[in-house]
């Protein structure tokens, strides 16, 4: 199983532990990641560039899709925000042939053309739809029994559901819960799991962004969660790095570790925590790891 790998900006920037754990996990799951085909791919625009110029954003995404198409490989990402922005751009490009034609004009000078065959896929969906829950279960060597985990999807991997093809792939709406159960942990449900983490306004209205972190993490904690799992590095950044500020708004430490999806899989399939940099989070994962008998 080979994919054109699109890691996104954050896994190569502020969340290097996501990159490292993805590599380790994919190797063990038999997912081959091709770096070369997407090495000149640009940022998706993250929805922010689209605020200034939607068509420019769609052009950059069409260029990335054309690069994947050229490689002949399906496109894999590990960032929910990238997934959402790519899916939305793809839906616009495929809905209007004239629009796609105009955009392809911009790519002509580089010898690229997007033919419309790419279907970008997050690792979360690859685990569900390509690897399969049964195979994942068969690879578990360390059942995470006793661990209570709150799923945190964030926004871009659940909305807009039409562009993300939820109707065609109904398992996408419960994928994180299914994976948590497959590795032997139990699910802590809470209403904030598909809400915004606050990251997009962190630099614009920090008070609101931090209050969102406080609400989500403290609710999950009150519901009994030992940790939170997210497929989005931007959610991770806000929920982890700004949790100390969130604790101040609640006047008590929240201390809820936030782990990346591949780190969860990695723990279950026997990858050592250091290799996945589980000691590099702002909120310590020590207590959580000791619950499953692992030293960080």
């Amino acid at each position, binding site marked *: 199983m080979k994919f054109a790998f699109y890691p996104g*900006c*954050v896994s*190569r*920037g*502020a*969340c*290097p*532990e996501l990159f490292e754990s993805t590599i380790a996990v994919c190797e063990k799951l038999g997912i081959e990641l091709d770096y070369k085909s997407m*090495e*000149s*791919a*640009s*940022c998706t*625009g*993250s*929805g*922010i*560039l*689209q*605020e*200034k*110029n*939607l*068509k*420019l954003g769609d*052009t*950059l995404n069409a*260029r990335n899709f054309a690069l994947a198409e050229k490689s002949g490989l399906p496109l894999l990402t590990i960032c929910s925000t990238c997934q959402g922005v790519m899916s939305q751009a793809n839906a616009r490009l495929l809905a209007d042939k004239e629009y796609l034609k105009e955009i392809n004009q*911009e*790519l002509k*000078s*580089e010898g690229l053309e997007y033919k419309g065959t790419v279907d970008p896929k997050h690792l979360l969906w690859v685990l569900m739809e390509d690897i399969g829950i049964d195979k994942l279960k068969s690879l578990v060597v360390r059942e995470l029994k006793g661990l209570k985990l709150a799923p945190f999807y964030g*926004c*871009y991997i659940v*909305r*807009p*559901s039409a562009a993300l093809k939820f109707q065609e792939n109904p398992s996408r709406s419960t994928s994180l819960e299914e994976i948590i159960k497959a590795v032997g942990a139990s699910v802590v449900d809470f*209403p904030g799991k598909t*809400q*915004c983490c*606050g990251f*997009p*306004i962190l*630099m*614009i*209205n*920090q*008070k*609101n962004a931090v*209050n*969102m972190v406080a*609400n989500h993490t403290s609710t999950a904690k009150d519901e009994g969660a030992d940790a939170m799992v997210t497929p989005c590095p931007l959610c991770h950044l806000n929920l982890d*790095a*700004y949790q*100390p*500020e969130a604790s101040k708004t609640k006047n008590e430490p929240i201390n809820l570790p936030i782990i990346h999806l591949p780190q969860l899989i990695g723990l279950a399939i026997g990858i050592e925590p250091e290799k996945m940099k589980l000691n*590099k*989070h*702002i909120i310590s994962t020590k207590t959580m790891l000791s619950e499953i008998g692992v030293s960080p």
Partner: protein
Amino acid sequence: MNVNLKVKRFDPSEPTKNTWWQEYQIDIHKDSTVLDALIHVREYEDTSLALRCACRASICGSCGMKVNGSAKLVCKTRVAEVSPGGEQVVIEPMGNHPVVKDLVVSLDTFFNQIKRIEPYVQPDHIPEKGEYIASNESMENLLTAMNCIMCGCCVSDCTVLEVDDNFIGPAALAKAWRFVDDPRDSKRENRLNNLNNEDGGIWDCTRCMQCVEVCPKGVDPMDRIMDLRDSAISNGLTNSFGARHANSVNKSIKHSGRIDEFRLPIESKGYFNIKEIFKLLIPGLRMLIKKQSPSPFHHKNPNQSKVKNIFKNFEENK
């Protein structure tokens, strides 16, 4: 078909426990809407259940409620849709609106938000005779925003309003776009200035798309907020955290193909905004200690000149 409804009740006249959940097991036609089911409950099971509805055809916008956690017009939602396998259907009043009784909410705060954006066309002259005429083409852009029936579903599920009731909110901002881009309106610049500068204005939206997902009329409020942001920046309103944030992302993707996570926070705050930059220091240092801080040395992607050319073409053709 048989269905189990779990309804959130609220009675302000109850002295002690005024909020509770109540279940109703009812038998209804397979094509029934959630509203049909609730009316059935009120008529045959429990006359004390309060709910609001009028047209029953998704025109009046009276019957917004939360069904299984997200806001919907219940007259437009079939029971079979939300309970395909006979699952329990959970019904609550809309969020971010004060509850009057059971499933009825007050729309006072909603309309106060709408009033904040002066929701009427303000032309600069009165035509000597007849009406103000606007061409079809000049109004096409407003069709989505004009579809709004003010049901309040977008406000109900807005994630910003949950933490900040001063946010103007998705419905009022979509409505604001409808006047900003109306060719007959003369206050475009004033409106954009206010929405740009106001605490709780266009830059406070998180782009979470809850409003797009729940809007029953295709208004797509968040997309209208993006239209407002684009218009504000195009009108030279670049002195806000939000506009600087968008410009910084634009600049770094053009330069390197990636977001420069080291400069983005500083450029969003403004290089000389010492007070705000100081606030970044503590989380920044924490990340540095854990070796998670983004590097100040930002690398370019291979073949970046191709991406830069795309940016240049767009800048030249704008």
